């Protein structure tokens, strides 16, 4: 973990509500692993007060990228930062996506909406490790799939879905996953998106006995284990105690998650 209070925004891109920043932060970048996140200070004033957790979207040499959707005041303020300005960030935080398996085989990455954010870094790293990567990217409508081309450019296989049928498969990304599982047998799934989508994907993984890694979200006070504010109930954790999403997660094995409590 490092603290960089002067990480410079060197590139910005935006599509309506979605924003991508490239941030120069050599010390955090060397340590970063897919699935980990940053705590980003969005304001110098006490409003909004807390830092916001944002996943690491990509590593580009000594820089990191974040990809986020405006959800409220904090992310709106963040989106207005300009190229050349600096950000105060702490990271990399949390546990990574990739298990230490000898052989990863066919890996399916399932991302919904802003949940696609950590899957780009993950896809690139998995590919380096020799996995066969295929990404399923779902959104409400075409406008919710702004980074789809990027995956293709990185040589990652991708199928898209939209709830309204405006692009790709017409339906939920979990329906798309169900179809794919009939055709191929992934060795592992990596899932990030809205809770309802992750829960459905976890059910599919369980039904087909495919191990799945899932990235949970939670309200975070600190992001580094000091406030105990981010907990959810996770199975197999010494007698089912609340566990910290920031420290023990955000990524868990699907079978560890107790969904009623995770929502």
């Amino acid at each position, binding site marked *: *973990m490092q*603290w960089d209070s002067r990480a410079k925004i060197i590139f910005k891109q935006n599509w309506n509500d979605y924003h991508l920043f490239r941030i120069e932060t050599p010390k955090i970048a060397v340590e970063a692993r897919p699935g980990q996140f940053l705590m980003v*200070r969005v304001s110098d004033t*006490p*409003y*909004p*007060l*807390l*830092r916001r957790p944002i996943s690491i979207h990509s590593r580009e040499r000594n820089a990191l990228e974040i990809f986020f959707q405006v959800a409220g005041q904090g992310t709106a303020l963040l989106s207005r930062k300009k190229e050349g300005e600096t950000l105060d960030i*702490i990271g990399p935080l949390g546990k990574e996506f990739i298990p230490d398996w000898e052989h990863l085989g066919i890996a399916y990455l399932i991302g919904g909406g802003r949940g696609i954010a950590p899957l780009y870094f993950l896809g690139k790293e998995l590919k380096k490790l020799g996995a066969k990567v295929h990404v399923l990217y779902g959104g409400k409508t075409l406008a919710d799939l702004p980074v789809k081309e990027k995956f293709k450019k990185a040589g990652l296989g991708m199928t898209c879905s939209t709830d309204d049928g405006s692009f790709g498969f017409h339906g939920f990304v979990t329906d798309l996953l169900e179809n794919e599982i009939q055709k191929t047998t992934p060795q592992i799934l990596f899932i990030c998106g809205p809770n309802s989508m992750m829960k459905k994907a976890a059910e599919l993984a369980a039904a087909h006995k495919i191990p799945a890694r899932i990235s949970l979200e*939670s*309200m*975070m*006070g*600190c992001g*580094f*284990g*000091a*406030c*105990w*504010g*981010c*907990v*959810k*109930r996770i199975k197999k954790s010494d007698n089912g*105690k*609340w566990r910290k999403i920031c420290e023990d997660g955000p990524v868990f094995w699907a079978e560890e998650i107790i969904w009623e*409590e995770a929502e």
Partner: protein
Amino acid sequence: MMIDLSVDLGFLKLRNPVLAASGTFGYGLEFAPFIDFDKIGGIVVKGLYFGPREGNPPPRLVETTGGLINAIGLQGVGVEKFSEEVLPKLRELDTAVIVNICGASDEEYIQVIEYLDRQEGVDAYELNISCPNVEKNGFCPALDPDTTGALVKQAKAAGRRPIIAKLSPNVTNIVEIARAAEDGGADGISLINTLLAMAVDVETRRPKLANIFGGLSGPAIKPIALRMTYQVATAVNIPVIGMGGIMTAADAIEFLIVGAKAVQVGTANFIDPASTMRIAGEMKDFCERKGIKKITELIGTIKI
């Protein structure tokens, strides 16, 4: 100019008046990557019950304008694990260590103190009298002068270390409670704990916290905390440690001016994890600018 930031609480000498507040600093070690412990006055570790505690269901946090409402429910590892795994590491730090003591009954507070009394490396106990008492329908000792006085007295008798009574602001007459703590034998008083609060999601009409209520902290509560610190510091003869919404040295100095001998910094640690160290540094700058040689020259100097 050499500036002396040290303060003497009578029962404890501090390098400078800035302590980290309980529950916002983990067990202390979480902040090792961010601060030098020998640049702050000390730390108050997270509240400890005798056994491990599960705490409340999530969501436990909600942000409001300039503040944070938390309903952690004092999740923690318990005094045994703390003494075995954390305390040995805290002993190596060059800073004062105060332990925040919790109890679901009067007996539990005493059990925690008796256990810690057998350990080395603790400088004082901060009695968190805002814990719901399970035998009294969740009634907190902090809400009533008699129960406050009685608990402080028992705690004082149970252990060998100084007792700081930490007061709750959720009362009609804070001075009355402070006096009861002093009469009970408290060596010092710290205030304020969080203000009982709530927030509602207008879409779903549900409370934003699973626990419905939580405790409000952060800049939003500072004026109330300052007023209460002033009232209490004026009324008692034991040292007062002020807290509530301190983000900068100027905030901290306000508390000193109204009579606090030291301060605690809480919520600010989440936003700027080096807050305690930064505030101590900024205090020095303030003294330099004002030509103040000793920080104690500021304490209780409010001009009314």
